[in-house]
C-alpha cells in the first residue's frame, strides 16, 4: 500500500542567518568593591526554518521552508557588590536583571501563523512574540467579533454582540440570560508564555572557614496554561470542585446550589454585559466539565494563569578544612565540605505545582513553546552533601 506523503518536499532550503548588534559597558567602583555591566542587544534571525503550512486541500499540510524572520532585542544588567572584604569575613551580593523582547517580523506570504507548539496551538505570528497560544476564550466586548456574534438580549430576542457592548468597556464579559458566559467561536491569542523580565539575587557571607550563600531566581510576567487544573476540573477531582452545585443535567439550567455571579465576589471579577449580568449561576458539573475543562475542548481562558514566581533556588553552607594535617596526611591543600538545598521554596500566585514546568521540557520551551502544564513533574527539590578536594 502506498499513499503520497503529505509533507511537501523542500527542494531549496537555505541556512538560517543571524545578525546581531550588541553594545555594553563594564564599570568598576570603589576600588573594585563593586562592578556593574550593562548590555543591549538586537538580534535578527532571518530565513528561520519552520514547517510552513499549506492549504490541506492541496493534499499537503506543510513544507519545510525558510519561512520566518525573528527579532530578539533586550537588556542584560548586572551589579556585583562586595561591601565587606576582610581576612576573616566577607560579604558579597550579586544582582542580575534581563529583559528580552521577541517578535516575529515576517512569515511566508501564504499563512497567518505557523504552529510551533508540540501540544497546544502555540504559534509564530507576525507582530507577536513566538509561542503565543491561539486558543479559545469567552465572548468579550471589543475582543470578540461584534458583528458576526449574535447573542441574546434583555427582554428576549437577539442582537449583535457589538450592539450589546455599546457603552461598555473593552474586555467586558458577555453573560447570557442564565448568568453564564459563552465561548467565543473565533480563536484568539490567550497566552503569552514569555516572561516580562527575569532576575536573580545572589549573596554569600563568609566568616573564617564557614561560608553561607543563597540564590533567589525571579521570573516576572509570562503566562502558563494550567491544563492539569482544567483536566481535574473536568474529572471533578480538583479541590475547586469540592463545592459544587447538584446537577440533574449537564446544562446551564440543569444545576442547583453553589451559585456565583460572574463579575463580582471574586468570581471572574470585572465588568459584565448582557441579560444575565447579576444573575446567579449554579456552578457544578456542567461548568467544570463542559465549559472550563480546557484540555478536553473546554475554553482555554480560565486555565491561563500568571507564570511569574520568585524561587529560592539554592542555599548552601560550606566549611573549609585547611589545617596542616590535611596537607600532611592527605596531600590536599584544603577540603570543602558543602551542604546545599535546591528549589526550596516558591512564592507565586500560580495554583498548580510549579510555574516553571513545561510539558515539552526545556528544549520545547527554548524554541518558544513554553508555559504548558499538563500533568508534568515540577522541578525537583534536592539536597546535596559534597566534598571538594583542593590540590
Amino acid at each position, binding site marked *: *500500500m*502506498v*499513499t*503520497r*506523503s*503529505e509533507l*511537501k518536499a523542500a527542494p531549496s532550503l537555505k541556512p538560517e542567518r543571524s545578525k546581531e548588534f550588541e553594545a555594553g559597558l563594564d564599570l568598576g567602583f570603589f576600588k573594585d568593591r563593586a562592578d556593574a555591566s550593562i548590555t543591549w542587544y538586537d538580534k535578527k534571525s532571518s530565513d528561520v526554518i519552520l514547517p510552513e*503550512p*499549506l*492549504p*490541506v*486541500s*492541496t*493534499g*499537503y*499540510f506543510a513544507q519545510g521552508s525558510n519561512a520566518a524572520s525573528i527579532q530578539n532585542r533586550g537588556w542584560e544588567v548586572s551589579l556585583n557588590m562586595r561591601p565587606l572584604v576582610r581576612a576573616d569575613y566577607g560579604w558579597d551580593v550579586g544582582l542580575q536583571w534581563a529583559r528580552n523582547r521577541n517578535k516575529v517580523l515576517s512569515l511566508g506570504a*501564504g*499563512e*497567518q*501563523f505557523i504552529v510551533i507548539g508540540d501540544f497546544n*496551538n502555540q504559534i509564530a505570528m507576525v507582530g507577536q512574540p513566538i509561542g503565543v497560544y491561539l486558543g*479559545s476564550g469567552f465572548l468579550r466586548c471589543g475582543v*470578540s*467579533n461584534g458583528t*458576526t*456574534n*449574535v447573542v441574546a438580549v434583555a427582554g428576549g430576542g437577539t442582537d449583535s454582540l457589538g450592539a450589546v457592548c455599546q457603552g461598555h468597556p473593552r474586555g467586558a464579559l458577555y453573560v447570557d440570560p442564565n448568568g*453564564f458566559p*459563552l*465561548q*467565543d*467561536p*473565533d*480563536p484568539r491569542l490567550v497566552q503569552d508564555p514569555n516572561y516580562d523580565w527575569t532576575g536573580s539575587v545572589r549573596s554569600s557571607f563568609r566568616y573564617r572557614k564557614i561560608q553561607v550563600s543563597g540564590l533567589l531566581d525571579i521570573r516576572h510576567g509570562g503566562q502558563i496554561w494550567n491544563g492539569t487544573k482544567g483536566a481535574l476540573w*473536568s*474529572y471533578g477531582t480538583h479541590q475547586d470542585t469540592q463545592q459544587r452545585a447538584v446537577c*440533574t*443535567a*449537564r*446544562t*446551564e*439550567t*440543569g444545576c442547583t446550589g453553589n451559585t456565583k455571579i460572574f463579575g463580582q465576589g471574586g468570581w471572574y471579577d470585572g465588568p459584565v454585559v448582557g441579560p444575565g449580568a447579576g444573575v446567579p449561576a449554579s456552578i457544578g458539573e*456542567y461548568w467544570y*466539565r*463542559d*465549559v472550563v*475543562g480546557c484540555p*478536553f*475542548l*473546554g475554553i482555554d481562558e480560565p486555565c491561563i494563569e500568571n507564570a511569574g514566581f520568585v524561587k529560592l533556588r539554592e542555599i548552601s553552607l560550606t566549611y573549609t578544612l585547611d589545617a596542616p594535617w590535611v596537607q600532611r596526611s592527605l596531600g590536599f591543600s584544603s577540603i570543602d565540605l558543602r551542604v546545599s538545598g535546591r528549589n526550596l521554596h516558591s512564592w507565586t500566585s500560580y495554583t498548580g505545582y510549579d510555574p516553571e514546568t513545561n510539558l515539552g521540557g526545556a528544549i520545547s520551551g527554548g524554541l518558544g513553546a513554553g508555559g504548558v502544564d499538563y500533568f508534568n513533574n515540577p522541578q525537583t527539590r534536592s539536597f546535596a552533601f559534597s566534598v571538594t578536594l583542593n590540590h
Partner: protein
Amino acid sequence: MRRNTDVALVSLGLLLGTTGCDAFLTGNKLSENPNLPTAAAIQPLFVGVQAGQFTFQEATAAMMTCEWVQACGAANGRFVQQAGQYVFGETSNIAANFGDWLQVYGGGGLVDIRRVKALARAAGDSTWVGIAKVWEALTIGTASDLWGDIPYSQVDTNTTNPPLDDRFAILGSLQTSLSEAITELASGLGAGPGNVDLIFNPGGDQSVATLRAKWTRVAYTLKARFYMHTAESLGVPAYTAAIAAALNGIGDPTGQGDLRSFHTKVTAERNMWSQFQVSSGFGTDLEAGKALADYMNARNDPRRAAYFCLNALGGYGGDDFNVVVNPDSISNFACLPPRFAADARIPYVSWAENELILAEAYAATGDTASARVHLNNELATVPLPAVASGLSAAALRDTVMMEKYVALFQNIETIDDYRRTCVPAITPVSNGQGFTHVPGRLYYPQAERNTNTNIPDPSVQLATHGFRNKGDVHACQGSDALP
C-alpha cells in the same frame, strides 16, 4: 627496491580506495531511499486510496454524526461525550480537525484518487478510471455533506488558495462524474484493479465483467443519494431523478453488491470502530443511543445483537444526552458486536439504502404503493414484518426514514437524512455552545483557514444560513414534521 615496491603498493591502494569511495558517495543507494519512493504503481496506490477512505468513512466524523442523530450515546465526559453535546470547533480533536480534512484531500484521498485516474487513463484502462471516479464521488460527496462548500474544482497540489465550490455545484459535478464513470465502465476496456479491488474482489475470484456491473450499480445508487441531497430544496424534480437513478442502482439484497469497507483481524487493518473500542483508551465512552435502541426494541429488531452489546439487565438500551438514564440499561460496544468486530465490513453505499431511497422518493411524490413495495423489500431482508397498506404518504415516509435510520447505522449519510427529513424526531442536546438545533455542518479546520483566505472565520460560519449547508432549507427542531 623493497622501499620502491612499498611506495607503489601504497599509492595503488590510495588510488583504488579513493575511486571506491567516490563511487560509494555518488551511487543511487546514497541518493535514493528505497523506503521513500517518489513514484508509485497504480496497484499499491489504489490500495492506499481504499484504506484512506475506509478511515475517513469510519473515523471521528462517522462517530460524531452517529452521536448527533443520537444513534450513539456517550459517557465519561471526555471528548466523545462532548462531541455529542456539540462541543467542537475548528481545532477539535474530533471531526472538524484537519485529520478528517486531510483524509479527503491528502495521501489516500483526492490527490491519490486523481493519480490513480491518471495512471489508469494512461494505461487505457477505462474500467479502473470508472471505479476511481466512483471513489472520488463518494469521498467528495461525503466531504461536502460535512462541510458544505469545499475546495474541489480548482484543487491541485500547486494551487495555494483554492476557492470554495458551491455545494450544489459540487453535487452537480459529481453527477456528471458518475455518469462518466458509468460510461467508462460500460466501455468494456481495461482489466480494472483485479484483486486489489478490496470492495468486490479481495479474493481475486471475480471476473472483470462482474466488477464493472457492480461498480456501475454503486454509481447509480450514489447518483440517487446525491439527488436526494438536493430534494429538500428542489422538491419533486430531485425525487424523480433519484428514482430514475436508483432503479438502476444496487440490486443485490445479499450485500454482495454493497460498497463496503474491507478489513482483516491484522492490527493495522482492523475496522476503525473496532480499533476505537480496543486501542484508543476511549472505547467505553461511546454507547448506544437511546433514540435508536428504543426504536429497535419497540420492533424487536433482530439487528440489535449485531449493533449493540447486552446491557447489565440482559437487554438492549441506549443513553440520552438530555436525560439521566439508568446506567444498567445502557448498551455499549465493548463486547465487539458483529458491527464492531475487527473485520466487520461497514456498508457505505448499499442495497438497503437504494431501496429506501426509492421508498422515500416514491412516498414524497405520492406513489405510496411503490414506496411500500421498496420499504417492504428492505424489511423482508432484516427480517421484519411488512408494512400494511393504508398509511398516509407522510406516515409512510416517516416509517421509511426510521427504517433507514436503523439500516444505515454507522453511516455518515444518516446526518443528511436527518437534515432533510427531521427523522428521527430527536430533541437537540442541551448545550452551552448556543446551538438550538443539531449542528448543520462542521467548522472548516483551522489548518485550512490559516492558509486559505477563502475560509471564513468560525463566527462568520456560524452566522451563515444557520450554520447549515446549502439545500438544508429547514432546521430540524425536536418533533418537527417532515417538511
